[in-house]
Every structure is written in C-alpha cells, then in structure tokens.
C-alpha cells in the first residue's frame, strides 16, 4: 500500500489531497473518495479512525462530508489542517456552482434558455430520486427494528408530507429518539 506519506502530512499536501477529492466527487459518493485518498492511497489514518470520524460527522449537524474533512484535517494538523481540508474540498466546486448559477440566471429569454431549463427540470426530478434512494439505502443498512423505523417515518411524514417545520420536529423527535434508544438498551 502507498504509505509513503504516512504520519503527519504537510498542510500543502493535505490541501492538495482535498482539492483532488473535491473534484472527483461528481454526483456524490464523497465519503468513498475521501476514504480512498486518506486511508488507502496516503495512509494518513486507518479504517477504524476513518469510520469513527464518519459516524461523528453524521451526528454533528452540517454537511456530512464537510464535517468529515474537518475531523480529518483536525486530526492530522489541528485547526490549520481543518481549514486546509475544508477550503481544499470546496474551492473548485464553489467556482463551478457559481458559474452554473450565472449561466442559469442569464439564460432566461435567450435562445436555448428553455432547453436548459427543461434539462434542469429533468435533473431536478432525478436529484429528488437520489435523496429518496439514499434514504432507502441508509434505512436498509441501519434500521433493523420497528421502533427506529417508526421514528424515521414520523420525521419523514411530519416534515415531508404535513409540512411541519424542521426545528419543531427536531425539538420533539430528538429527545424521543434518545429516550427510546435508552429504554431499548435497558431492556
């Protein structure tokens, strides 16, 4: 395995690694790319450290992959490492998204603008499906019992169908889920 950089990487190589991760992540699957780069190719941490960081990144609010970059950067080089990882991960994608946005905002009423907008409607319809499909995948991997399945269903329906506010639902369901997990463990 390519462990030539094992140990403490320089800020520059940390930044470079996350720039390439950011660009390889077309269409999602960022965590898999992060693992490949940081664990497999560079040997900066082992799988157990990575998975623990991945679990934490999902527990903390915010974009999971950005949180994971903070975790890895901080682990390897402290605050400066966390900043290098996040800026590296997002720099090029930010530029690409801004250019796409500018094209979208200026394409209205221009020739081809309607075609662009129809294509985006199709991609948007797929993107919704990607979210739902991710939910199905995660559910099959992580939900084995009725109680957690009910918690997930109540949250999905109250926000997604009934239109309740995110904060209100979390204020009720986070304590409920914690209490249920605690009760289940005591039995």
């Amino acid at each position: 395995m390519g462990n030539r950089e094992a140990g403490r990487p320089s800020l520059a190589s940390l930044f470079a690694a996350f720039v390439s991760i950011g660009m390889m992540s077309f269409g999602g699957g960022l965590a898999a790319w992060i693992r490949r780069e940081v664990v497999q190719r560079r040997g900066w941490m082992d799988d157990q450290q990575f998975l623990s960081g991945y679990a934490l990144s999902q527990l903390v609010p915010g974009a999971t992959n950005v949180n994971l970059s903070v975790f890895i950067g901080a682990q390897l080089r402290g605050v400066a490492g966390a900043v290098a990882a996040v800026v590296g991960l997002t720099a090029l994608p930010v530029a690409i998204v801004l250019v796409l946005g500018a094209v979208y905002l200026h394409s209205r009423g221009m020739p081809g603008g309607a075609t662009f907008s129809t294509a985006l409607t199709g991609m948007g319809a797929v993107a919704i499906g990607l979210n739902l499909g991710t939910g199905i995948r995660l559910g099959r991997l992580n939900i084995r019992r009725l109680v957690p399945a009910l918690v997930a269903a109540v949250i999905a329906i109250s926000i997604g169908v009934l239109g309740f506010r995110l904060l209100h639902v979390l204020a009720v369901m986070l304590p409920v889920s914690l209490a249920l997990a605690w009760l289940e463990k005591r039995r």
Partner: protein
Amino acid sequence: MIAALVQIALLFGGLSLIAFGGGAGTLPEMQRAAVVVHHWITAPDFLAFFAMSRAAPGPGSLIVLLIGQKVAGLAGALVAFVAMFGPSCVLAYFAARIWHRAAHSAWRALLERALAPVAIGLTFASGLALIRGTEHGWVAYAVTAGATLAFAFTELHPIALLVGGAVVLLVAG
C-alpha cells in the same frame, strides 16, 4: 443589500446548526424560506438550483451559493457559504476533540443509535418536501420514481441518472 445579507446570514447560520443527518435535511426549510417567506426565488428556480448543486462536484449544500448569488450577487454567495458551513465546522472541530476521548463510552453508543433514524427520516423528508413544493407533470414524477429505485437498488452512477433524467424531459416533457 445589507438587509438581504443579514437575512441570508441568519437563515443559513441557523440551518447550519440544525442540519442533522447532513445538509439535505434542511432543504424543506430552505425552500420554505427562499420561496414562500422571502420570495427570493420561485419553486422551479429552487428545483433547478438543487439540480445544479447535485450535478456539480462537492457537497450538495452548495445550493446555498446559488440562493445567495440570486439575492445579492457574489457577496450574497460568500455570506451564504460562510453562514452555512462556518457554525457546523466549528461544532465539528470541537466535537472531534471530545469524540476521540469517548471512544468506548456508553453515551457515544447511545447517541449513535438515537441519531441514525433521525438522519434517515430527514433524508426522506427532504425528498418528499421537494416533490410537494414543485408543480410537476407526470413525466417528471415518473423520472423521480425511476431514479429513486435505480439509485436504491442498482450501482448506476448518479451522473448517468442525472443525464438520463435531462434527456427524458427533453424528449418527452
């Protein structure tokens, strides 16, 4: 302009701290704020922004750049970016330090088990809310259903699905 920037900062800064289960969980709230409350963009705009942020590399939460850009140009995009990612990154940094020390503690295992169904519920909620918030023809609904199944049960690449969806709408929409 300044007022708009403050509104952007408050909206995304708040969402940053309640985005349990990743950025997608906040999409319903983002849509409500940007389309219904502030009238910054229309519902079709929101869906187009969502599609662009999913098609581009990087985290899906980069949709906040597009909303910020529409409201207040580059400054709006910058404020939205810092507001959406800053607070959660600071939280992640301190959490990482505590996490390390709690490797075998009972509360860490309890948190992991309690938050998994919440995150999964929020993922479904975001998809359902986006369907509800968008006026669509039956072709688009069929595309969503097909993409859901394809992504859940096959190994087709998301980019292939996104391109396929665009083609279907161009031909049949």
